[in-house]
Every structure is written in C-alpha cells, then in structure tokens.
C-alpha cells in the first residue's frame, strides 16, 4: 500500500531583486526571480523521489522550500496532511525532527571546532532536553557512527581529520539521529570518487530499507537518479517538465528536454554509439523567462504554438506527466 508522505501543490517561490533604496533610486525597478514556479508533485512513503535538472533550474530551492528554509510565495506543502507552509514554530520544530537534510558541502555543515561526537549529539540533545545523561548520548552517538560504518572512535576527532567520503557518512549519521521519516539529499555524492560514491549509495539504500526512510534525491547525475529513485521529476526553469516512475521516464522519455538531458550523460559503452542531442546555448535567466514554453529557446522540436502558449503538465497515462505541446493531441 502506497501512502503519500509529501504532497506539494502549486508551490511558488520567487526571489525579489532590487528592493533596496539604492536600487529604487538608480536601478531598473524590481526584478523577480522565478525560482520555483508552480510545482506540484507527490512523494510516496518509503520510496525515493529523484529531482533532476541543470544548475539554476530551482531544484535546490524547491527542496529548501519544502523545509521552509525559504518561504514560498504561495502554494501548499502537505506533510502527512499538514501544511508546512502554515505551521507555527512549535509544529515546525516537530516537522523538522521528522525530516532531515544532507547538504552537498558536508564540511561547510560541520563546525570545525566541534568534535564529530558533539556534532552528532546536537540533534539528540535538542530532542531530549537536558535530563538525558551524557553516558546515554555518547552510547547513541557510537551506535550512529557504526550504523554508517565509521569507527566509534571517530567521535573524538574533528571534522578536518576526515576524508570527503567519511564526512558524508557523518552527515548521514547526523541526519538519521532522530529517526526521521524523510531525508532530502542534495547532491549527496558530488565530488566523491566513483568507489566512495558507491559506498554512500549502498549505505543510504541499506538505511532506507532498515528505517523505512523516504528520500528526496536532488541531483544532476542522471545515472545515479536512475539507479536510486523510484519516481522522478525533471525540472527546467522552476517548472516540472516531466514526472513519473523513473523506469517509465527513462524508457519513454516524452519531453524533448528529458531526451536531451539523458542523451548527454556520458556512458561507458563497449559497443554501439549513442546519439547525443546537443542543446543550443544555456539555461535562460529565471528573471525574464521566455514566453510560452520556457524550453522553446533551446528545443530542437520547437514550433509556433510553443511561443504563444504555455504547455500544461498533462497525464500521459500511468502517472507519467509531461508538459509539452507535442503530446497534446492537437
């Protein structure tokens, strides 16, 4: 039985530039960055949801908005039916115990003057108040460290004594400290060697199985998303252009952008040559997105209607959605 853990409805996060006094006097007026522009999606419990797209497409902002690290302009984020956007401080604190983030720059997330033990103990102290004694907490820290295959002795060391792969493990240990239901992993293996990345992926899969965690997997590595995720969404300029079960999306790529993105991934092949679709230019600025379909400026299959009308996200059947006029039947 599949239960929806997170439902996002028409979420919009805009950033405003030029609000300051100097910009008012000398600037060209208010500029609006459409970082997340009307995204709706559903993350099912116990599964991994992959979110892919080029840098600047809004995938990290979407993730941050779910946790209300960034306030949305409008829309809903339902976590087990409760709207995160409307939560007060107390509810938000409870929500944030059930959901955790593993950030890309793991060293940036750790205080260099705290030992790893202190870093991992912090969420535990927050949960338990001061009545829990140190013995219990250091016991728990040791268990967490061994859960991520690190030596419990690591607790007395400082972050700079660890390699990139080990730092990620510490990040994972801290994220699972409070038994969360939901973890967002933002580029969890970027900058790691192939073999080290493989250990992190294995670890996170094991934890998912053991603790029934739901992942939001934000990455631009399509090979990894294909391997890790059950469902996925492809974002472009703040909008979801294609969404569905990962297998479905890869087998029957419907949107020209998805096709180009997947074809551009370098593959180790030993036989046939694959055809790479080269996109023209780069992702346009989210301040002045193109009219109609946002992708039309780079799309190899562009036609007249794309300029005039914004394509809606249509169900192609079986929960496979695509926002492209090519699939509109007209």
């Amino acid at each position: 039985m599949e239960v929806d853990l997170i439902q996002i409805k028409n979420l919009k996060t805009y950033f405003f530039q030029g609000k300051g006094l100097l910009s008012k006097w000398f600037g060209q007026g208010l500029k609006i960055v459409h970082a997340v522009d009307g995204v709706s999606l559903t993350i099912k419990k116990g599964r991994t949801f992959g979110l892919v797209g080029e840098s600047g497409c809004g995938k990290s902002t979407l993730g941050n908005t779910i946790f209300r690290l960034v306030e949305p302009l409008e829309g809903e984020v339902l976590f087990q039916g409760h709207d995160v956007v409307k939560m007060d401080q107390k509810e938000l604190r409870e929500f944030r115990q059930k959901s955790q983030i593993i950030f890309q720059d793991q060293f940036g997330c750790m205080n260099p003057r705290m030992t790893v033990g202190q870093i991992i103990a912090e969420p535990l102290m927050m949960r338990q108040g001061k009545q829990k004694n140190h013995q219990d907490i250091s016991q728990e820290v040791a268990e967490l460290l061994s859960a991520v295959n690190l030596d419990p002795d690591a607790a007395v060391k400082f972050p700079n004594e660890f390699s990139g792969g080990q730092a990620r493990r510490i990040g994972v240990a801290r994220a699972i400290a409070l038994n969360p239901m939901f973890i967002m992993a933002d580029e969890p293996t970027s900058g790691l060697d192939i073999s080290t990345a493989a250990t992190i992926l294995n670890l996170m899969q094991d934890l998912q199985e053991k603790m029934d965690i739901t992942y939001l997997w934000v990455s631009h590595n399509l090979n990894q998303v294909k391997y890790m995720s059950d469902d996925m969404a492809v974002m472009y300029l703040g909008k979801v252009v294609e969404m569905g079960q990962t297998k479905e999306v890869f087998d029957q790529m419907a949107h020209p952008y998805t096709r180009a993105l997947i074809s551009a991934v370098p593959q180790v092949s030993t036989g046939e040559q694959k055809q790479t679709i080269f996109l023209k230019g780069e992702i346009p600025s989210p301040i002045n997105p193109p009219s109609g379909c946002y992708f039309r400026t780079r799309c190899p299959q562009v036609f007249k209607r794309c300029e005039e009308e914004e394509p809606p996200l249509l169900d192609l059947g079986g929960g496979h959605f695509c926002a492209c006029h090519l699939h509109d039947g007209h």
Partner: protein
Amino acid sequence: MAEPLLEVSKLTLDYNLGNRKMRALDRISFRLDKGQVLGVAGESGCGKSTLGLAILRLLPRVAEIRRGEVLFNGTDLLKLSEEQMEREIRGQKITMIFQVPQNALNPVFKIETQMTDILRVQDKYQNPGSRKRRKDFRQQAIERLGSTGIADPAARVSNYPFEFSGGMKQRVMIGMALSSGTSLLLADEATTALDVTIEAQINRLITELADKYGTSILYITHNLGVLSEMADRIMIMYAGRIFEMGQTQSVLGNPRHPYSAALLESLPSRQTKGKRLLAIPGFVPPLDRLPSGCSFHPRCPFAEEMCRQEVPPLIEVDKGHWSACLLDQKRGRQKWKWI
C-alpha cells in the same frame, strides 16, 4: 603510421615534505600519438593531475623528478631550461585547461585583455619583430572566441569574467588554449564542474577544435563515461602507477586488472536498481606508506602471497593492451568477479 608526439618513459617523481617522501609518480611510461586522445583515469590522489603538471613542469618546489624522460617531438622537456619552457612550450605548443575556469581567469580584467595577452606573447615568440597592433590582436581574440561557439563574440570580448557562465568561461579557456600552434592539450577535469548538457557541448568543442588543428589531447578525468566517448586510448592509474593501458574499447570492455574491473562495477549506470553497487574495500593508501608488492593488494580480494611481495611490472598482455597484475600475468587471463 602514427607518429608519437609525447613519449614519457619511466617518469618518477617525489614530493618531499619535511621528513616524509611521497612517490607521486612511479615509473610512468606511455606514448601519445599525433592527433590522438589519451584518457587518464583514477581516483583522487592517484597522481593523474601531478602527471599533467609534471609534463609542463609547473610543479611546486617540493616536487622532485627523480628520473625519467618526457620526450615531446623528440626533445626531452625535463632537460630544457626554464626560459626555453616559457618561450617554446608552455602556452605555445602545450597548453592546459583546468577544472575551475574562474580560477584561471583574472576577475578584474576584461576577457579581451586576457586573451590578447596570450596572443601577444605567442606572437612575440613565434614571429619576432612582428608589428601587429592592438587592433589586430583584438580581432584575433574575437575570432578565437567566435570559434568556441560564443554568440556575438565582438561584444562579449569586452565583458568581464563574472558576466560569463561556467560553461562560457570554459569556452574562453579553450579558445585561449587551442590554436594552430598547439600540438598538445592537457585537459585536467575540464568538464567536471559543468552540467551534463554543457559538458557534452564542451567536450564536442574540444574534439572539434582538436581535429581542426591536429592537436593531441591528454584528457584527465575520473569520469569513465566521458573517456568512453572521447578517448582513443585509456590509462588507469592507482597510487602513482599505471595499472592498465590500452584501446578504450578493450580496457573498458575487457579489463585485465581487477582495479579497472572494480571501477566499472561501482558505476550506478552499470547496475539495475535494487542491486548493490560494488564498493572497493579499504582506502587508497597514503603515498608515503605504500604497501609492499602490488600497491592494490590490501584491497584486492584476489590477492595471493606473490602480490604482497613482488611489484607487478606493466606488461603488454594483449596487442596494445598493457596491465600490471601478477595474477593476470602468471596465471593467465582472469575473469574479475567482484560481486
């Protein structure tokens, strides 16, 4: 018949850090033919970037080349004077592009200034007494920028680096690096920081321009997928040694060294969902405490007694396919079943 452009033989290099001596390159020998692309792959710390810098002699002072030759068109680069390197080689015949282009561009100068600087120096050494003027160099810079696929180069040349995206900056670097005079391009993780769509564009650009000018490329990366698509030959390095080398198809298709086989097995693209990825046990050893014998033996489940004692030589095990694994050499062809 292919002509060799670069022949490196037995290149051995140490980093001397106080009382610690790290052997970063250990008897590296390979050749790169004219117009070919040689891919260098390996995990971080295996010496692949050191190799690129050693060829250009751009290493920090703690590095010491113990022995070996780097023959470039028959001349040993290690024997040239610093002045000759500067005049004839660096930025002239051999150029390099790096992973982070913003570090290679000065933020306070316009793209034009930075490109014409290079052109001026190249011109000074290549045509002494030339009377080219600023206008000519600017024109040349615009042409170079245009050839890298940047739209409206005449206007963009007056921009500052911060006005360019990461992909465009890398295009500028390529424009500066590749010209008719360049015969060898060292690309060190040139596309690692870019999005896949931009990466594909940049790699195509490098290949096209290299074809146009007949430039050979030493392409350093940890992305085996990129090498599979770009390289004619591949070299796999580990802890300062070459473990395997050969035609791309044969190295990736029939790896003879267990380490190469393991690298391929740990790629998520090779595995279906739900199956575990291969994670090689243990870590890359620190270079000042390399294990005896084959430096990979503590992590290799196939290792036998001889692997602990004998350093495996790099031997041609098949036509044009070299490998440094004792088991493969002494027990005959092995199938490396890691999982």
